[in-house]
């Protein structure tokens, strides 16, 4: 049975609209409903995985109405969003007891998920903008959820930069509409193919790169991320670092570049430059951090750099007309790293939340020796750290290896060298995390610390299990062909992809 695509947006929306109206006595019901919504979304995402279809909202034929598109790329993102979202929601069931206004938190969480689902499923650029705004505004409010000095400051900074980014995107959309007369991605792609790029479209593309680059926190635009991500409650940090910057930033940018504007060499080099800058700067800045969550946030910038680098490498190779196999390899590496990062970075943020909740601090200087007190948290953190640092059997190793191979094959040895160097940086910073948080002497004030409980453990352990088995995605050819290759094919097909889907 094929699931109607609007369901992915409608379920979280309707539940979100109902939750704030529930009375005080119905708090457990609200939590249950929110969890149920997330789990059903996950089930639906798994069920509809591998489909490729177009849904015409309102029954209007394509240029008239809005269409939603499900293809390999969007189903990959959809799966990541719902999986991480379900884990984060489970985690918040207990974690968010320390804050007030839990129903509003659940509402905002679901709205953010609805926004991200809307973005990855949209086939219409203005619709993409609207859902981008839903997800962004929900995340601004969630960053400030704590209501204390740091949270508010981070939230304001994030909101200002995010709003500027949204305005850039809207301006770009206006320029695209003025030049092509259409808002549908496939129609725009066709129009651009027919007339070629002109100054207006090029400017629109640079506005998109700046706007979505701000949302993805690529390096010249990264100022908000190291403040915003640590300030949010831990499950929200997991969502923000794990999927939000990818769905709103990288997904949207990649979709527009590959399937709408078409690849070109300058754009590819811009992406590579942004990727390498983010990788190096994020990695170097992360090592010096002593705040657990802040270190993770800087490391997110660095890891997102890998993804953008892989995609940029693919862009350059495709635009040069070099062998498709190499481009495919680079993109595969980038996308695999994207999925990996969404799993292990959200797991890391969840463990940081568990540590913070148990000890009341995030400063690594004040922590230490938690390995005996919190064995499960320690084990999950270990898995995630090993994975992100690229220790061989774990998935992070394979995605970095693929990127290095792709760079070497394409002849960009210096890029391969940069990847390896930043991987060493990453290894150092996660050794530091292990050393200062879980090993060493247990300070006096932490003797009473207890392991996290119930739903928090379930969420962390399930993500850790997922993280261990992710390597199979690339090692087993059948799985790779079923999960990652469709997404890569969507990007390789370029501007013809959206047109072909419409003509189906």
């Amino acid at each position: 049975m094929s699931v109607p695509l609007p369901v992915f947006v409608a379920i979280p929306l309707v539940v979100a609209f109902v939750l704030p109206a529930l009375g005080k006595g119905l708090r457990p019901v609200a939590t249950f409903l929110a969890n149920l919504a997330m789990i059903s979304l996950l089930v639906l995402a798994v069920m509809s995985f591998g489909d490729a279809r177009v849904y015409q909202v309102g029954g209007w034929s394509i240029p008239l109405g809005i269409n939603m598109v499900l293809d390999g790329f969007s189903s990959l993102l959809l799966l990541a969003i719902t999986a991480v979202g379900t884990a984060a929601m489970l985690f918040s069931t207990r974690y968010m007891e320390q804050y007030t206004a839990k129903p509003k938190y659940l509402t905002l969480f679901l709205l953010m998920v609805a926004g991200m689902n809307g973005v990855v499923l949209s086939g219409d650029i203005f619709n993409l903008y609207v859902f981008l705004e839903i997800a962004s505004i929900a995340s601004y409010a969630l960053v400030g959820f704590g209501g204390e000095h740091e949270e508010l400051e981070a939230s304001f900074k994030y909101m200002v930069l995010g709003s500027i980014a949204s305005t850039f995107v809207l301006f770009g959309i206006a320029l695209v509409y003025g030049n092509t007369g259409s808002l549908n991605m496939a129609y725009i792609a066709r129009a651009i193919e027919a007339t070629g790029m002109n100054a207006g479209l090029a400017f629109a593309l640079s506005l998109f790169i700046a706007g979505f680059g701000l949302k993805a926190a690529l390096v010249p635009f990264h100022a908000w991320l190291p403040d915003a991500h640590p300030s949010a409650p831990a499950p929200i940090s997991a969502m923000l670092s794990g999927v939000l910057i990818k769905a709103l930033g990288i997904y949207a940018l990649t979709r527009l570049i590959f399937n709408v504007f078409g690849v070109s060499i300058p754009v590819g080099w811009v992406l590579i430059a942004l990727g390498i800058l983010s990788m190096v700067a994020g990695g170097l800045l992360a090592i010096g951090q002593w705040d657990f969550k802040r270190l993770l946030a800087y490391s997110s910038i660095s890891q997102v750099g890998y993804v953008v680098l892989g995609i940029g490498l693919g862009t350059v190779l495709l635009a040069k007309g070099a062998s498709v196999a190499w481009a495919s390899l680079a993109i595969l590496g980038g996308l695999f790293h994207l999925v990996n990062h969404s799993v292990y970075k959200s797991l890391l943020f969840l463990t940081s939340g568990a540590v913070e909740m148990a000890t009341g601090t995030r400063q690594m200087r004040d922590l230490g020796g938690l390995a005996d007190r919190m064995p499960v948290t320690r084990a999950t953190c270990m898995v995630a750290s090993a994975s992100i640092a690229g220790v061989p059997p774990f998935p992070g190793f394979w995605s970095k290896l693929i990127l290095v191979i792709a760079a070497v094959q394409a002849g960009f040895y210096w890029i391969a060298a940069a990847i390896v160097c930043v991987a060493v940086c990453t290894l150092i910073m996660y050794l530091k995390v292990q050393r200062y948080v879980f090993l060493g002497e247990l300070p006096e004030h932490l003797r009473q610390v207890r392991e996290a409980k119930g739903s928090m453990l379930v969420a962390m352990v399930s993500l850790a299990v997922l993280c261990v088995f992710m390597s199979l995605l690339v090692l087993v050819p059948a799985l790779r062909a079923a999960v990652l290759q469709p997404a890569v094919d969507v990007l390789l097909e370029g501007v013809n992809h959206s047109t072909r889907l419409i003509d189906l």
Partner: protein
Amino acid sequence: MLYALCFLLFMIGLYCAVVKKNMVKIVIGIVVMEYAVNLFLIMLGYRTGGTAPILSGPDVDVATKTVSAHFLAAVVDPLPQALVLTSIVISLGSLALMISICIRTYTKYGTFDITEIRRLRG
């Protein structure tokens, strides 16, 4: 030329949002940017000497629900207007949230000056 003036308005807003250090000024800059984009979208749909996209009695054949050729040749583009309606609402929503954050920050820090609101290390 009109488009360029509109772009100038956008840039003034961007300047205000990037350079000023008063939180409310920054918000004002963003509001100005949003005005400029809305205006730009509507200007894209304008037709010199056109009519508003609202049907009135003489334009419509009520029985067949068809529209007169005269109206078709004169009407401005309705699509950007629908888009701007959406984007105005979005900017109102984000304005409300931004001002809430400003006021709340003010009650915590006692100032609107972002150079004094520096608990977080850059």
